[in-house]
């Protein structure tokens, strides 16, 4: 699955702020680190501020800081500010849901959405920081290398 840009930018920002609790970070610093649009990130940070997730500190040396406990802030809390997550209501549309194939397809898609929802809801920003420290994806890449070699030898 792929998140919308705004959701990804918001998560980058929140993770950066959680990783640097003693400092206020400027949006431009975060944008530069991730190579993303500072203009778009500024808009995302305003939305996060309105949601009470970040505080803007004005003046010299100002910037943003996290306004909530990262042990209590989940990926879902952040993402659902910017896009719907989980099974969507079909009450006002989707006439194809009335067909057997439509109903069966909806059932399968809802199963996927339920898993997505449970995953985003169970992972906090603190857990993301731990995941970043462990870097399991680096192990996955290392583990995949011999397999690729073996496959190419066949």
């Amino acid at each position, binding site marked *: 699955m792929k998140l919308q840009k705004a959701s990804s930018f918001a998560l980058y920002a929140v993770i950066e702020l959680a990783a640097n609790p003693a400092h206020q970070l400027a949006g431009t610093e975060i944008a530069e680190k991730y190579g993303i649009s500072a203009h778009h990130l500024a808009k995302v940070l305003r939305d996060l501020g309105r949601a009470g997730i970040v505080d803007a500190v004005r003046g010299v040396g100002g910037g943003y800081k996290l306004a909530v406990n990262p042990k209590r802030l989940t990926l879902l809390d952040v993402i659902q500010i910017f896009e719907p997550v989980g099974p969507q209501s079909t009450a006002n549309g989707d006439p194809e849901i009335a067909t057997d194939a439509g109903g069966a397809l909806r059932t399968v898609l809802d199963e996927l959405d339920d898993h997505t*929802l449970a995953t985003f*809801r169970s992972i*906090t920003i603190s*857990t993301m920081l731990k*995941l970043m420290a462990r870097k*399991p994806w680096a192990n996955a890449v290392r583990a995949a290398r011999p397999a690729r070699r073996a496959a190419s030898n066949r």
Partner: protein
Amino acid sequence: MKSGAVSKKPGALRIRPAVRSDMQALIALDEEITGFAKRKYWNETFSRHRVRPRSPRFLLVAEDNGSIEGFIIGEVRAWEFGEPPCGWIFAVQVRPKTRLKGVGTQLFEVLCDAFRRTGVTKVRTIMARDNHLVLSFFRSQGMMAGPFIELETALDGANAKERLHEAAKS
């Protein structure tokens, strides 16, 4: 302790294998958390998981000044679903007023140490998708989705009852 696991930091909580005299406190703690007093379940669980030399089963409690504040239950199972032996965690609970103090983490770590001593290299668990609290706890311990997908289907009630009845008669 040969088969169990103990953690005792000075002035801190003590993680140790449950003993028979803990049962009342465990049943009361479980009832406080779940709303159900499962006396029979706990007696059976204790019989299965009490400390024995080289046992792959563990029922650990977190004791603070003589009060049982949490527990964790797990065992090593071999070749389930074709997988090599690995540790399974069946339950973890911490008294609500004692949460956010690292009790669950200590229980988890001591159980994982006990699993490691048996030679296994993986620990697994399964739980309801909507159990956000415990799911978040296991995520915070570094657990990620494993290689399995849990599936189920409803059994036709009437037919199932008939089949059980026929099986009982034969």
